């Protein structure tokens, strides 16, 4: 049983590590946002599932349920912050050094004005 918990934790740690490396290495803020979703989804979900399995196994049903609910709320609230930050960065005028391959949003906003 302990091995299952460890597998979940290592899984979460790996994706958190990959996301952190991505945040440092990515060329502009939008791509950094993409990499940070990596941490928020499978990074935390791995840790949350590991914690839940551990607490169910050791008899703390209350803790296990709480940990699962916390994971659910992270999944529900994270994307809202993500798209708000991304849109705010774009509207503020942040553009990458390397050009976008295509920029439909900028084109349509310019048309709208």
């Amino acid at each position: 049983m302990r091995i299952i918990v460890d597998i979940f934790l290592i899984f979460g740690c790996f994706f958190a590590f990959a996301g952190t490396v991505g945040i440092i290495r990515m060329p502009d803020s939008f791509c950094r946002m993409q990499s940070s979703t990596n941490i928020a989804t499978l990074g935390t979900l791995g840790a949350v599932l590991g914690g839940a399995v551990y607490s169910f196994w050791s008899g703390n049903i209350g803790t296990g349920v709480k940990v699962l609910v916390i994971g659910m709320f992270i999944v529900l609230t994270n994307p809202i912050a993500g798209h708000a930050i991304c849109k705010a960065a774009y509207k503020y005028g942040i553009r990458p050094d390397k050009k976008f391959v295509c920029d439909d949003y900028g084109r349509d906003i310019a048309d709208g004005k």
Partner: protein
Amino acid sequence: MIYLKKTEKLEKGGVCLKKTSLSAVISTFILCFVFYMLFTFAFNLEEILVGAVVSLIVAVFTAKFFIHDNPFYLFSTSRFGSLLRYVLLIFPKELLKANIDVAKRALNPSLPVKPGIVKVPSDLKSEYALSMLANSITLTPGTITMDIAEEDGKNYYYIHWIDVATTNSEKAGETIKGTLEKGIGGIWK
């Protein structure tokens, strides 16, 4: 996303928030109460009383933001079944695939990214379906929904995509959200 659409409509001088119905308040109250009990996880009389009072206050003030439609829409076997299938099977599979893909890109020494913003049409109609799909797209690494726009009765997403394989909006939509959209289409129209 629901929020954005509402404010757009308000600016055009049209629809306001709908009136709250009693069933909306009751269902919000039940949801709040269930989560209160799950978080405290202590089943004695005081906790239950405090939880009921707090959830009632919260429900009265937030039901109009929370439920615009029939609150018992999901109480049907096929809809609830497809919701469960989406949450437990379809979405985790896509999440895992996208996570592995972005992790590979981040750890790859040559950093193969081709960022761009594509405009993608969607066949979904209801606000819940649109916001659920937008959140699912944002939650999968590699794609972030930036905005939603309504043109000629059709809804379009603006999606920041880390690896633009095609600039054709139909094909891009199929790659980004093909399976997700089918899964959500079974729940909401």
